């Protein structure tokens, strides 16, 4: 009915009626009614001199052209004609609308008019056309490249009109996002100058695009960096918060290059504080984004905001998301100077209404105690005050943090234990119960009725969560070692509960270990269980430094809101180029580390690869199997998980209902897979310093071999291999069901290994695996897992779970899957590094029976990211100088000597970590012989 009426009106002769009808159509369209049936009638109205009518018809076209592509062709002629109109407004409108019609057939007709418009005399048309290139690229990227529009767009960066420049930059940035390897925005000092000039004159949105683009530029020296900073600082006073934050990003990044002795450096620091604070007086949504970024800035350069503590004080009507962020920053800024104020505030917050906020406030008090030693006593007494309120969740939270305070200041605040014990009965959250049990076990000798207390927990042992069970086991063993006479019965009881009546392999394993320790050598047991524990560190939730540096480059983006690098969550960004802060070029620093130049951090990284044995033992002592801390990525490897992994049983969560560790169960619900990537993925950057732009060829892939024979795994056979393609490592598996029953619920986990290999996504087996069926899976891996040196170095222990059981196997991975794409060293650097590495680190190997010539060798190796830097011919022998870099930033330099008649090559490897040489050699051999 309605459609029919509209149809009649649209075909009316009266202009006015037509227009009203089109308006009605648009109104229906806006509210989601389907008016596509009117397509031909509306298109008929397009040929008109009335600008409003034209615009309305254009609106309609954009919406429905997709569903009516054949009809849309009818409109093309009018578009082409409009692109020639004397009125620039109409020319721009036409080219703009054409770009919005996402129909392939139309795009072909669009090219000619677009080319003209990109060179139009009127800047308004050029600026619109620039955006149109981005639109077209979105629809048909190949076409845009073939037509040379990208070059035209690049030329527009030098346009005389700032608005055109800004739009060209915006369009190029968007195109570059889907083309990470292209060098669309290759900037040089001239184009930078153009951008900086345009920056002053374009609209606020244009300024954002230009600033974001500037942030990707790498100034050649500190003088250039300073001059860019000087020209960017006025943007800090812009009314648009996004402009301000983008300017902050540029400054934070380029500051890195300035010498700290420079006067200008200090001035810049001072200039950064006020605009950041001002962002906090804006609307709450802006505040939230600003706070997430300030959180990063405060960690990178705490000096900027150290005097601004008060602006982070919470107002009672702030939205909860703002409150929580403010609290986090308050703790980061807490210092001896302001701790009194901070504590007073935190105490105030602990009496607020919102439970989440109150909990976090209580936790914050504990963090203050650990961070500022002088305040510990006041914090403890504040916490005791809060315990007296008897508000259940406050008490529980307080006990959890007091446990941490005990860890930090052992034997100092034991007087409060009595008060804590009074509240034992009210604890119903596992974390609080576990904390309390830990305290009782740790201080068993000072608590008269420790045995009674622990015994009371034992009654409902099987109903407790794993965390509490493990803690209880350890605590009772501690108690037994301290008071052996009275507690023998108790310890037997708990050991039997843990080993005989429990389904949890981790609990069982731990029980057995204790049992054996106690039965074979009680003295050793004492040494192990009651040994001194390492103190907990001051800041447990700092973002790991390399990740922080990367995130600083992403200030103002989604990455900064999530505190994860974009590669961890932005869809389709496989090839995202990792950004890194520029190295400082100040004279003093540059002299001492010439060999580590591009990343600047790698030298420091090496020790982190292999934790000392001492730490591992320490871990064994404190078997707090807390649920792995979720939330911000943790910098150091979690202390608490360590021991369990040592026993090869880090798979507890596998059985214990998957408590949310890095273990990723095969998802049954549609969880956001792209965000499900491990929390700590940022850690990867520790090992993957500058990341790599993927080359298109993949590394050599060995044929699959059987890793887990069916007879060892109740009918599940697993064979597989490793591959590396375009910068991403994957484990290609074939799971075969040789049993008689259906298998389902697959999940996989790796033990800690030398290079932190870990699954980057859950094991996706979509359908249950029927008997005699097999399925091929490619499991993406990353290198952000926990690190432990294995022997052999490339050993990987894997656990696979299905509905039947958990199976363990180990396999050796070829080292070349860890060779990153940017492993090509500069010649000069190569020479310097070669000389720099001591001769005792050199290892020589023979590669026998290889008949390739030097060029073939070089190209073959290049496929697997071993790069030939130079080739020399010395006395008839070909010498290849090669470099490669491992995911954890270790460089390996190689010299390969090839004699034309001799099938045996000589390979000399030099590396700062000589233990990898042997495995690099193995990789060479595998690649060359296949």
């Amino acid at each position, binding site marked *: 009915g309605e459609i029919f009426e509209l149809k009649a009106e649209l075909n009316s002769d009266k*202009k006015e009626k037509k*227009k009203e009808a089109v308006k009605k159509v*648009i*109104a229906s369209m*806006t509210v989601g009614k389907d008016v596509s049936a009117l397509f031909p009638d509306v298109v008929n109205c397009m040929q008109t001199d009335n*600008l*409003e009518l034209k*615009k309305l018809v254009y*609106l309609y076209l954009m919406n429905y052209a997709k569903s009516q592509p054949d009809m849309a062709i009818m409109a093309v002629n009018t578009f082409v004609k409009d692109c020639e109109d004397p009125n620039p*407004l109409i020319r721009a409108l036409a080219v703009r609308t054409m*770009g*919005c019609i*996402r129909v392939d057939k139309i795009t072909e007709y669009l090219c000619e008019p677009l080319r003209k418009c990109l060179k139009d005399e*009127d*800047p*308004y048309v050029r600026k619109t056309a620039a955006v149109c290139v981005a639109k077209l690229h*979105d629809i048909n990227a190949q076409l845009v490249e073939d037509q040379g529009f990208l070059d035209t767009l690049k030329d527009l960066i030098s346009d005389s009109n700032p608005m055109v420049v800004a*739009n060209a930059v*915006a369009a190029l940035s*968007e195109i570059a996002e889907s083309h990470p390897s292209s060098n669309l925005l290759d900037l040089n000092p001239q184009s930078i100058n153009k951008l900086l000039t345009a920056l002053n004159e374009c*609209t*606020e*949105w244009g300024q954002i695009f230009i600033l974001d683009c500037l942030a990707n530029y790498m100034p050649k020296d500190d003088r250039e960096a300073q001059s860019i900073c000087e020209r960017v600082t006025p943007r800090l*006073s*812009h*009314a648009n*918060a*996004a402009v301000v934050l983008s300017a902050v990003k540029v400054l934070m990044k380029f500051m890195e290059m300035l010498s700290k002795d420079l006067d200008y450096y200090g001035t810049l620091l001072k200039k950064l504080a006020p*605009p950041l604070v*001002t962002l906090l*007086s804006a*609307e*709450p*949504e802006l505040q*939230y*984004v600003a706070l997430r970024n300030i959180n990063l800035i405060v960690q990178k350069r705490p000096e900027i905001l150290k*005097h601004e503590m*008060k*602006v982070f*004080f919470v*107002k*009672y*009507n702030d*939205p*909860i*998301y703002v409150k929580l962020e403010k609290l986090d920053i308050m703790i980061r800024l807490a210092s001896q100077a302001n701790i009194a104020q901070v504590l*007073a*505030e935190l105490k105030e917050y602990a*009496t607020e209404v919102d439970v989440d906020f109150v909990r976090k406030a209580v936790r914050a008090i504990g963090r203050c105690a650990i961070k500022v030693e002088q305040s510990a006593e006041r914090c403890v007494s504040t916490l005791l005050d809060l315990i007296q309120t008897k*508000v259940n969740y406050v008490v529980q939270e307080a006990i959890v943090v007091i446990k941490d305070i005990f860890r930090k200041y052992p034997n100092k605040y034991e007087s409060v234990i009595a008060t804590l014990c009074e509240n034992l009965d009210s604890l119903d959250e596992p974390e609080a119960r576990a904390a309390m049990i830990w305290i009782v076990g740790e201080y068993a000798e000072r608590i008269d009725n420790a045995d009674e207390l622990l015994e009371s927990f034992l009654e409902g042992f099987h109903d407790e969560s794993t965390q509490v069970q493990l803690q209880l086991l350890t605590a009772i063993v501690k108690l037994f070692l301290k008071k052996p006479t009275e507690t023998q019965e108790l310890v037997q009881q708990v050991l039997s509960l843990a080993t005989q009546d429990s389904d949890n392999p981790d609990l069982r394993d731990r029980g057995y270990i204790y049992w054996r320790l106690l039965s074979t050598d009680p003295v050793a047991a004492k040494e192990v269980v009651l040994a001194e524990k390492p103190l907990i560190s001051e800041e447990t939730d700092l973002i790991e430094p390399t990740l922080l540096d990367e995130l600083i480059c992403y200030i*103002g*983006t*989604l990455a900064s*809101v999530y505190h994860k690098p*974009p590669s961890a*969550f*932005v*869809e389709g*960004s496989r090839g995202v180029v990792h950004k890194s802060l520029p190295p400082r070029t100040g004279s003093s620093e540059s002299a001492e580390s010439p060999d580590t130049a591009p990343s600047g951090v790698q030298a420091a990284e090496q020790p982190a690869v292999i934790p000392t044995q001492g730490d591992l033992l320490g871990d064994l002592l404190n078997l707090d199997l807390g649920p792995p801390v979720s939330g911000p990525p943790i910098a150091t490897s979690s202390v608490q998980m360590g021991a369990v992994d040592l026993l090869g049983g880090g798979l507890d969560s596998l059985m214990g209902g998957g408590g949310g560790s890095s273990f990723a169960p095969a998802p049954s619900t549609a969880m956001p*897979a792209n965000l499900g990537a491990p929390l700590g993925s940022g850690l990867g950057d520790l090992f993957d310093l500058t990341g790599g732009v993927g080359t298109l060829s993949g590394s050599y892939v060995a044929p699959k071999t059987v890793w887990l024979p069916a007879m060892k795994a109740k009918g599940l056979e697993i064979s597989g291999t490793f591959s590396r393609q375009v910068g991403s490592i994957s484990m290609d598996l074939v799971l075969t069901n040789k049993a008689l029953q259906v298998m389902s619920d697959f999940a996989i986990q790796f033990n800690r290994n030398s290079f932190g290999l870990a699954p980057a996504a859950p094991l996706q087996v979509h359908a249950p695996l029927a008997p005699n069926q097999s399925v091929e899976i490619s499991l993406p891996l990353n290198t952000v897992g926990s690190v432990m040196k294995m022997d052999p170095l490339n050993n990987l222990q894997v656990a696979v779970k299905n509905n039947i059981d958990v199976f363990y196997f180990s396999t050796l991975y070829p080292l070349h899957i860890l060779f990153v794409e940017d492993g090509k060293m500069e010649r000069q650097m190569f020479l310097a590094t070669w000389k720099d590495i001591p001769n005792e680190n050199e290892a020589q190997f023979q590669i026998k029976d290889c008949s390739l010539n030097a060029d073939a060798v070089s190209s073959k190796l290049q496929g697997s990211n071993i790069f030939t830097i130079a080739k020399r011919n010395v006395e008839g022998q070909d010498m290849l100088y090669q470099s490669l870099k491992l995911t954890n930033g270790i460089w390996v330099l190689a010299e390969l000597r090839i004699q034309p008649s001799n099938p045996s090559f000589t390979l000399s490897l030099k590396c700062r970590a000589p233990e990898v040489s042997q495995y690099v050699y193995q990789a060479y051999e595998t690649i060359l012989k296949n």
Partner: protein
Amino acid sequence: MIHSLFLINCSGDIFLEKHWKSVVSQSVCDYFFEAQEKAIDVENVPPVISTPHHYLISIYRDKIFFVSVIQTEVPPLFVIEFLHRVADTFQDYFGECSETAIKDNVVIVYELLEEMLDNGFPLATESNILKELIKPPTILRSVVNSITGSSNVGDTLPTGQLSNIPWRRAGVKYTNNEAYFDVVEEIDAIIDKSGSTVFAEIQGVIDSCIKLSGMPDLSLSFMNPRLLDDVSFHPCIRFKRWESERVLSFIPPDGNFRLISYRVSSQNLVAIPVYVKHMISFKENSSSGRFDVTIGPKQNMGKPVEGVVMTVHMPKAVLNMNLTATQGSYTFDPVTKVLTWDVGKITPQKLPNLKGIVNLQSGAPKPEENPSLNIQFKIQQLAISGLKVNRLDMYGEKYKPFKGVKYITKAGKFQVRT
């Protein structure tokens, strides 16, 4: 860039959607609704939500959620700023930014959104330019339009977009040339139980209403520009002049706009113009409590404190309140537990007081938390920071404009803890 926009009202109806690229199904909003449900309070919905394929960035204004959908890495602040700009534009065009206003003017809204964003890139967001492109609705115009058949859409090139001063339209003409400046300062403060200031700062703005013909070039100077060390400028202001001479020099946009906003930081001493004496207590094991609050003036430079309103979010256990006000009137909403006391003007001779009994739900435990008092007030003819305009000069045009400056101080987020 910005992919799509959904407008959602408080009851969760999507009443408008606009897509700048391909169409994103409404079902993407389910993730938003989920977050909204979790947040309980509308104000607490997180502004950035991730979904498997998109990100939702939203703002909440005037009981409407503006939810934008983005697909690639886009600066969230950019999106949030833009959404606020959209809301501002609606406010500007329709007088209010409400669901009804938007629904009534749906075609204009659609046209505006189309002009403001092209393929996700902001196009024209300055109100001066938008108004040239799309005329705001007025009753008169719709009558005239229906008679003459002319339209709401301008057919001129938006001249301003191309010049170096994109914020000003060309050919402005007034018979009365006027320039008014309002210096508005808001005090944000947290006062603790004992009456000492935990935190205080001043957020100031200078809002301008400039109706000057031609291309006037203005410079505004202050008696004490040193106060302004943290300033955000309208793009029209020449930053260099400010850096070197501390003078605001600019070619103004036409009409109303915010010239600068500034913050007088907490390092400087901020005068607190009112004090509050309070006694709010709940007895243990009894279902009642006492409430006694007095407000008085201090440090107000001899100017009267007016428009005083106190709002208190009472604890959940409060059933009702039996109070007597010596001045003004109070209301207590037993559903939201909000007590509002409209005091009016404070006369120092007789301080306003509100006191009486608080009744709690029987059997409810004594509330743990004491409510914060939220105070609003106004002081005319005073900029509490002491900022004073010195003079306004005009260059580039010959006529003599009429000039004026007004000062006002208000409470911003002014909270007294009890």
